[in-house]
């Protein structure tokens, strides 16, 4: 049986990639094992844990629930693209300051989800943060320090705003 290949043209973290992929290849596998962007982690492969979240034209999506072909013609941002030039974004800095990560496996998905959330809701209440975070599972932290970090990042972003 010949594999069912499709040409795609996708921009990830500002770099354009033209590849031929099998129709059934998951976007998460494509990012991790074809583009070697292994910072996007896979936790459940059924869209529950949120570890594989990336930004798809700026919106958070679960890359384990999409096929790579669906990304053709779109712009993606992964954890590797969050701090271009190496300077940590407020959300990354705040996670460090407030001990919002332990094993760090769920962290990339949480950073991508919260990046999109803070863009939509720059001054969230704690309840809103908890609601927005509830689609990402973390087994280490008990969430308290992640919530703290997101609240702090919102304030840092406010300080940075022109």
């Amino acid at each position, binding site marked *: *049986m010949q594999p069912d290949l499709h040409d795609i043209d996708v921009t990830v973290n500002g770099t354009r990639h033209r590849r031929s992929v*099998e129709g*059934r*290849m998951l976007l998460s596998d494509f990012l*991790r*094992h074809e583009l*070697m*962007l*292994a*910072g*996007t*982690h*896979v*936790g*459940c*492969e*059924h869209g*529950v*844990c949120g*570890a594989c979240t990336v930004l798809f034209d700026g919106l958070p999506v679960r890359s384990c629930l999409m096929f790579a072909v669906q990304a053709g013609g779109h712009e993606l941002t*992964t*954890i*590797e693209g*969050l*701090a271009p030039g*190496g300077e*940590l974004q407020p959300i*990354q800095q705040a*996670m*460090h*300051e407030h*001990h919002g*990560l*332990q*094993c*760090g*496996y*769920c*962290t*990339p998905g949480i*950073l991508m989800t919260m990046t999109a959330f803070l863009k939509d809701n720059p001054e969230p209440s704690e309840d809103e*943060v*908890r*609601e927005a*975070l*509830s*689609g*990402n*599972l*973390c*087994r*280490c*932290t*008990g*969430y*308290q*320090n*992640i*919530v703290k970090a997101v609240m702090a990042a919102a304030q840092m972003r406010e300080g940075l705003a022109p």
Partner: protein
Amino acid sequence: MTTRFFGAPVKRNEDRKLLTGQALFVDDVELPGMLHVAFLRAQVAHARIIAIDVSAALKRPGVIAVYVAGDFGPYWQPGPLLVPPPPIPGITFNQRTQVPLARDKVRNVGEPLAIVVAESRYIAEDALDDIAVELEMLSAVVDIERALQAGQPCVHDDLGSNVAAHVHQSKGNYRKAAAKADLILKRRFYYEHGISSPIETRGVVAQWNARSQQMTIWDTTQAPVFIRNGLAAMLGLGERQVRVIAPFVGGGFGPKIMMFYPEEVALPWISMRLNRPVKWIEDRLEHFFATTHERGQIHDAEIALTRDGSILGVKDVFLHDTGAYNPYGLTVPINSQCTLLGPYVIPAYDSTFTAVFTNLPIVTPYRGAGRQHGVFVIERLLDLAAHELGIDPAEIRRRNLIPPDAFPFDNEIIYQDFQPLQYDSGNYEPVLDKALAAIGYQDFIGRVQPAFRNQGRTVGIAVACYVEGTGIGPYEGAKVQVQSNGKVSVATGIGTQGQGHFTSFAQIVADALGVDVTEVDIVTGDTDQFYWGAGTFASRGAVVAGNAINEAAHAVRKKALKLASDLFECSEDDLVLADGRVSITGIPDKFIRLGELAQRANPMRGAVKPGTEPGLESTQYFGPSGGATANGVHAAIVEVDPLTFDMKILKYVVAHDCGTVINPMILEGQIQGGVAQGIGNAFYEKLCFDDQGQLLNASLADYLLPTSLEVPHIELHHTVTPSPLNPLGIKGAGEAGAIPVGPLIAQAIEDALDLKRRKIELLEIPLSPSRLFELIRKVAT
């Protein structure tokens, strides 16, 4: 020592890599020519294997090899017994360890039957469907009480029963103690712990290099040194030929230490056979069956007390589900048996358990490791006794606490580390006081709760105590080395799964050597970097490896000062080691950098003096004489919806004593995470098996890990009673948060819904809205 990092909330060294997607996890290992492995797993719990036909799978394009048990030849062996049973007189222990691939019989859903190796994981999984398996179905052993009845099928036919172990331990004379009691209460308790479910599943990459005769294995293990030694022996290689790397590991919580998982045995063998690197990453569905669980026990327990609430004795007979095999020996049920005694003076104790084989996945320790089960029994017994005797639940606990002058306190039975269960130190009453003050106990009972009741709100309070035996032996070691660039490298044999070792260990070294904490690089989990060690388990990393690192760092400090004193021709007493250099007191301009000293310690000419050694480095080991006993009290205020039985935790307080604290920020994180897992265990997470051993909720959509909406803010308070068993005075803290949550939630819900008045007792965990509905309806009708 001018800078003091030890004890400070130092931010973590490891964060940057993790926050930017640059940390290496096992599935991130990509090697040229790598093949991918998928396992065909049994879909039934108990069956005899008649035939497995792999011929169609072998014909599929992209498939390189397919293996069944027979292909392994003499390499097919049952796994080792990871922890032999402790030396308890009269013990029965029937060892039956897991096999790499099922050969004659399937003993649990998920047990591997065949292995496909292919060019991609996609193709490997396609080929699983090509394999034809013929089985003779057998009735499954699922219920641990029925498993022991005559005429039941046997998980291991040659054994003639399903008894995995039988253990009796006692202290004092319970019968005599009970004869003097004013009150004896007897109940049956059910406690089930679930699965650890780290967000990273397990995985193995193995690479055999035929030219160099070297095997490299990347493994999500908590115990790389044991994995290396065991695999080297199995593969017929020297230990120097095998390197096991446990890189960043995405959570462990216990089940990532198991010797050996079938996949750990199979992949290196396949890599040697095919001379290609191979990778297997567990998917989430596999994780529910292929990674070990903890699961359930049934306790028939009774407590004997005086009228004033003093405990005279406890008797407990319990059954423990060990699953299809028992490679981890008796660690879990022994922990239950020992930890039941808690922080209380219990003069007489009589405890018997039977471990039972079932056709369910293997049970090994998961954070708490059986301690939860024991703590649930004693804490619930005290709640029931308090109610009967008209004593406040907090007060009955206070009356029975071990007094501070009674340490070391001997509980006269044998613990999981083979040592007598002796508590090293403790001061329990202040911890209880702190928890009660922080939760506002008296005010809640006297004022707040009646006000809630008037508003029609069902809100309850609870308090639960526990001790945790931590920091057990045998030993850990560390090599501390000042490098020529002035950076300090530390290598230790334990693995790390998010506990902050890259920081807490660096803090110990930074203080000893007068360098910044960011100048200390920690290497864990690479057997080529450090040869010896046991692993990360039993809340022992900081205690055992931490003390080894401390000793090595101080040996290096001594060497540095000696070298500098020779160089400056002055006394060591006149030297200051700070800011990465050694200087002469009062003459800060006269100094030498540590990196330069390291270079001088490895001279190109001249002789190294007899009795000295080159390099500014030291390797030291530390083995504690016994475990250090941490303790704590949790308190909570909980609201339960009387119609839906949903629960909301309004306030959660932990007061805790784990001895000397290295990094309070990391410690708080450990406690918060532990409590979150405890909340999951108490109210959300339940493995639902049918009577044929099928797991009915094997997905994260159906097995409910707590989210940010279920885990409340957790307020933490400390007291510090250093352990006398190690120079740093540390006690372990990794598991504590998870241990007393079950009885706490049960007690709080009972209080919220005023269930005692309705003669309803919550004697089981996990609870859930539906289970509460069932229990309450059963009594109401």
